[in-house]
């Protein structure tokens, strides 16, 4: 237990350091490039301009600007939006959007792991039957289709008429706010990765099934389901969990596109808009938020390792 706590502590420090490094690089990079042109709406009056610049600290040398930003950020204040007319404090906005993004990501991962492991196991058990071949080919095709194409296909499917025979769980309006609006974007996000997980699970299961301890389990007189799940799958999942970390990262990254397409008010959409509208304060803030999110997600995955494989102890 102590080892785990120490490990967690180390990882948290690492996450913090990464966040600082990333945010600083982004901040400095942007400021070097964009400098004082960061205000999206520049008044012609020089006096007014100077006032605004001063208000946003843009007239200071950028190392100093970064220091101010950092000291504020650590205390939870991510600054203010630079867009004229908004000027709102960012932290509450970010938290709200983070919740949205995390919800979306959560369901996507749930789908990915659930369906992926399920189908992969099935394909492994029925190796070399038509189920296996069909599933394997379907898997490759599925992850070759990018998530946005899946989004298009799903929208076409649900919007143009199939709606009636799916019990109303599929919606007609694209957006966010009701529970029934979750499945389609989550599905679009998760499908390609589910296929990857399925493939991996299948390969892993095939290896595990040949192991001696599975043979022992049969010899003990255990039933098929027990052998497959308790003995085979439990071991087969270990390499799958390994890939879950980068997978979570990919899903979080992919959510940017999906949120944008579906108009989901999450961090991704915020990021895109901030880039396009040159509101770089937001850009830096969201970037940092993402770095933290990914760090935590990976940490969570790594912490599940000892549960699955008792040979690994921190």
């Amino acid at each position, binding site marked *: 237990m102590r080892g785990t706590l120490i490990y967690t502590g180390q990882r948290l420090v690492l996450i913090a350091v990464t966040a600082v490094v990333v945010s600083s690089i982004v901040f400095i990079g942007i400021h070097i490039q964009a400098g004082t042109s960061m205000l999206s709406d520049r008044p012609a009056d020089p006096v007014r301009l100077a006032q605004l610049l001063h208000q946003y600290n843009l007239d200071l040398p950028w190392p100093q600007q970064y220091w101010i930003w950092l000291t504020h950020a650590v205390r939870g204040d991510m600054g203010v939006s630079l867009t004229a007319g908004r000027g709102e404090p960012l932290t509450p906005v970010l938290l709200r959007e983070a919740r949205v993004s995390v919800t979306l990501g959560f369901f996507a991962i749930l789908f990915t792991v659930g369906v992926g492991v399920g189908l992969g196991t099935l394909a492994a058990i029925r190796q070399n039957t038509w189920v296996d071949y069909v599933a394997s080919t379907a898997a490759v095709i599925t992850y070759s289709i990018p998530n946005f194409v899946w989004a298009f296909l799903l929208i076409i499917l649900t919007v143009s008429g199939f709606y009636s025979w799916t019990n109303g769980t599929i919606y007609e309006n694209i957006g966010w706010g009701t529970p029934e609006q979750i499945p389609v974007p989550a599905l679009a996000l998760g499908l390609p990765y589910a296929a990857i997980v399925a493939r991996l699970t299948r390969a892993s299961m095939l290896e595990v099934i040949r192991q001696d301890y599975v*043979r*022992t389990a049969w010899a003990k*007189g255990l039933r098929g389901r027990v052998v497959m799940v*308790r003995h085979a799958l439990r071991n087969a999942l270990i390499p799958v969990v390994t890939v879950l970390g980068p997978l979570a990262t990919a899903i979080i990254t992919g959510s940017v596109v999906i949120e944008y397409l579906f108009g989901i008010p999450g961090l991704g959409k915020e990021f895109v808009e901030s880039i396009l509208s040159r509101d770089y304060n937001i850009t830096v803030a969201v970037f940092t938020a993402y770095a933290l999110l990914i760090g935590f997600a990976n940490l969570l995955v790594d912490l599940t390792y000892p549960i699955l494989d008792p040979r690994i102890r921190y």
Partner: protein
Amino acid sequence: MEDLHTEFFTSGGTVTAVDGVSFEVRRGETLGVVGESGCGKSVTAMSILRLVSEPGKITSGSIKYDGKDVLQLSADELVDYRGNDVGMIFQDPMSSLNPVLKVGFQVEEAMRAHRRFSPKEARDRVVPLLKQVRIPDAEARARDYPHQFSGGMRQRAMIAMALANNPGLVIADEPTTALDVTVQAQIIELLRDLNEEMHTAIMLITHNMAVVASLCTRVIVMYAGQIVEEGPVEQIFENPQHPYTWSLLRSIPRVDEHEHERLRSIEGIAPDLLRPPAGCRFHPRCPFRVEQCYTDPPELELVGPDQEARCWVKMDRAYKEMGAADLFDVSPGAGSGYYPT
């Protein structure tokens, strides 16, 4: 087991790993099955539990346990039979134990699978079982994982697992091969004691004659998928009738031998079961072969009280006519002097 045939259907052809093997194991008996790698002894054992792995299949013959026809068992009955009527111990205990489950749980699982004991009873039996196989500090050890055990202890745990349901027969497939010599002796002793205490029949599969000598009362010698000799251990050791058995016994290095004598091994390599030799399968390597051995496959014949061998020549004749007692060169044909052109 009667006239069992187990074949492997590979892309290169059909391999008959078990070719007409028949024997029986009596209650409480210890039977040894000896032979070199690839002779079919492991496959025979797996066949008893119907655990033959792809692409193998039991193609003909019958196996009966206590009156039950094993090969006709339904899926549910089979699950009942395994681990309950017949238990099995495998060769490499590290890979044969599930690394992510506690050892105590794996033993408990063996009992829970069969409903002979209630869940509580099963759990309570774990520690006594571990103690019975002489695992020190059994209570704490039950909560450990396999990688925390030493090799010998793991094997003991496997034995505990196999015995958990008081099976009538325990098959031990090379239980000591993966262990150190000192530990080997302990395991064999343990098996012997268990056999005495619990009257569980043990079928010991090994390529090591010495192990057979210390544990078994009867022995079967297999070669190329067939039984070539069987009988009581003492008899076989004293008076082996089949040249293969004779060679095996000669090849055991002994402390009282002279240092400069070469290790006497059997020349040649194991036959290719895809295309087994014509006639007697051992003839390409047999020092005492005669013309008949090349053409006619011998059947099992009674050669002594309760002892059978599959040979045309038999060692009695080899001693009398071929001077086998003093033979030093045991290359094929050296005894009989028969070298066909």
